[in-house]
């Protein structure tokens, strides 16, 4: 069955009512049209990051809303404890890739749908992969992963003479849950607050003062934490790092924690609690996931179709006791380390002759920059490289020889980015090198 025919099916009538008629909540630029449904069914590419509690819900919601070009990425495999809420998985799937099982299930269940799974880490792909998508929606349990996706999408932005090229913006819809609490947000990289702008909103990991766990434990968690932080590195029972997924390791921690709890007369150390403390497990609640995923999918739909103004931009949800939700506009941080960086271009006539020192002098002497003691770093083939840092004597001495090296000798190439930090600005500056080398004919 062809896609055109598919969008004509009766099952999409409810979507047509929204997409083919104007309404009071429409985006100002919205033009009702039957092309919009075709767009989300044939052209709109959505990436779902995470195929867990939120990911399963989001994926199901998106395909039932007509999206067909969906990619899903997750590095995890199905575990027994997932099955109560991650409803695309069955007992037989335990040990298999979450992304693959989820994609397979959806492709079989929903006709005409094409979900592409990626059983990989998000870091395995580079900008070429992420650039493919119109919208990225995240259902993750890790802040590092969120920050990474956010950083990637910000890095895809194009600036022309310092002005953002809006066609390079890939919106990110991010959901998160913790027990009966959740949040959903819409990030337009470069335009609205990004993950890094609001980093201090994330709750800190629960930690206990080291002296308390060492000397005056009162809670079973104190005993477990002590064994994890102090006894494990000291005794190193398995000559390897602690792995919360390794039953032997957890058992060892459990036994030692019991001994310690007995010493201090503290009841309540159980195997489950040990697992929770060691792996920082946050209890997942299916209904919270469903609510947050529903909001995320709706936002994806709103952004893709413009049929309604998207969430602006941060929603919190709480159903611990009744239901509470509140939406506010998280503000872009002016000196955000990630999204405030606008690359400036420096043209280089001959990289085999131009020395780093010339760039350094430009930064300190030219009226445009007038920096005090800029620090310069870069990334070459995924490895960070310190070009010149003056703040610490030991680093200055080690990196001073770089000043008299040419850009080519330093491994910098056309399009390389040099990060510049300086006391004169709270912002990091990015310098993008543009080579005008003789072997390339300029058009």
């Amino acid at each position, binding site marked *: 069955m062809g896609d055109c025919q598919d969008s004509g099916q009766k099952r999409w009538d409810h979507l047509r009512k929204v997409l083919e008629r104007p309404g009071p909540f429409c985006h100002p630029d919205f033009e009702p049209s039957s092309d919009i449904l075709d767009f989300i069914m044939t052209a709109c590419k959505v990436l779902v990051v995470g195929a867990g509690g939120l990911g399963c819900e989001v994926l199901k919601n998106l395909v039932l809303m007509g999206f067909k070009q969906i990619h899903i990425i997750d590095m995890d495999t199905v575990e027994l404890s997932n099955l109560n809420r991650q409803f695309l998985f069955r007992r037989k799937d335990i040990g298999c890739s979450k992304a693959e099982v989820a994609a397979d299930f959806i492709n079989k269940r929903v006709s005409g749908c094409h979900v592409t799974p*990626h059983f990989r880490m998000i870091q395995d792909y580079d900008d070429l992969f992420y650039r*493919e998508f119109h919208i990225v929606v995240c259902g993750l349990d890790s802040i590092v992963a969120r920050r990474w996706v956010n950083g*990637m999408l910000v890095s895809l932005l194009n600036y022309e003479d310092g002005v953002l090229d*809006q066609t390079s913006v890939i919106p990110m819809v991010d959901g998160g849950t913790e027990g009966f609490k959740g949040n959903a947000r819409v990030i337009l990289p470069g335009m609205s607050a990004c993950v890094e702008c609001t980093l201090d909103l994330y709750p800190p990991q629960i930690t206990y003062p080291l002296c308390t766990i060492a000397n005056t434990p009162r809670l079973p968690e104190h005993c477990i934490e002590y064994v994890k932080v102090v006894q494990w590195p000291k005794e190193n029972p398995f000559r390897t790092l602690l792995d919360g997924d390794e039953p032997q390791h957890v058992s060892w921690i459990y036994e030692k924690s019991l001994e310690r709890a007995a010493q201090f007369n503290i009841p309540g150390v159980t195997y489950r609690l040990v697992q929770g403390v060691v792996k920082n497990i946050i209890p997942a609640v299916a209904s919270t996931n469903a609510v947050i995923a529903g909001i995320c999918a709706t936002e994806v739909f709103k952004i893709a179709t413009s049929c309604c103004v998207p969430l602006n931009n941060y929603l919190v949800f709480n159903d611990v006791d009744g239901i509470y939700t509140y939406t506010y506009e998280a503000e872009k941080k002016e000196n955000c*380390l990630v999204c405030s960086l606008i690359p400036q271009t420096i043209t280089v006539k001959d990289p085999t002759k131009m020395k780093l020192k010339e760039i350094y002098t430009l930064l300190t002497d030219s009226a445009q920059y007038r920096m005090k003691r800029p620090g310069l770093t870069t990334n070459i083939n995924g490895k960070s490289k310190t070009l010149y840092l003056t703040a610490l004597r030991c680093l200055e001495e080690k990196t001073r020889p770089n000043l008299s090296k040419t850009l080519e000798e330093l491994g910098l190439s056309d399009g390389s980015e040099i990060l510049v930090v300086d006391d004169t600005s709270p912002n990091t500056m990015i310098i993008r090198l543009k080579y005008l080398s003789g072997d390339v004919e300029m058009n």
Partner: protein
Amino acid sequence: MIKLFSLKQQKKDGETTPRAGNQKKASAAQLRITKDINELNLPKTCNTEFPDPDDLLNFKLIICPDEGFYKTGRFVFSFKVGPNYPHEPPKVKCETQVYHPNIDQQGNVCLNILREDWKPVLTINSIVYGLQYLFLEPNPEDPLNKEAAEVLSSNRRVFETNVQKAMRGGYVGGIYFERCLK
């Protein structure tokens, strides 16, 4: 608000072969630590060492207190900054054996901002000052080395002798300390 993409704009399926390690951009943690280091304002009693100048995430801090119980000592701390910095604090260990109420034999350091009171607005500089303060004012209230703490609160003179003995290299309370004089 803008209408982000016209309906005509189509994104094509390209090659999606993974190219691991081809990350051209610095991570957020990397950006932040570079800034922290460039803004480091070390007191004259402190020094740093970077075994690999390209790796700003792993370095050592050397403190040589110029007053207090630990004057003339030299103490090395290792800093490991993880990918979740500054959401999570760096991991800091004391590599020098020290007779100190707030530092244990494994090098664990009891400093509130290294664990429960860490906030993303804090920087490497805050930790440096925190550590320096531990040598000026060892705190017997929250001990990691209970014996040292008891001695400090009951008899400062004995504590001082013990610190001296440990720094010169020798046994205190049945535990051998390596010499760590400057």
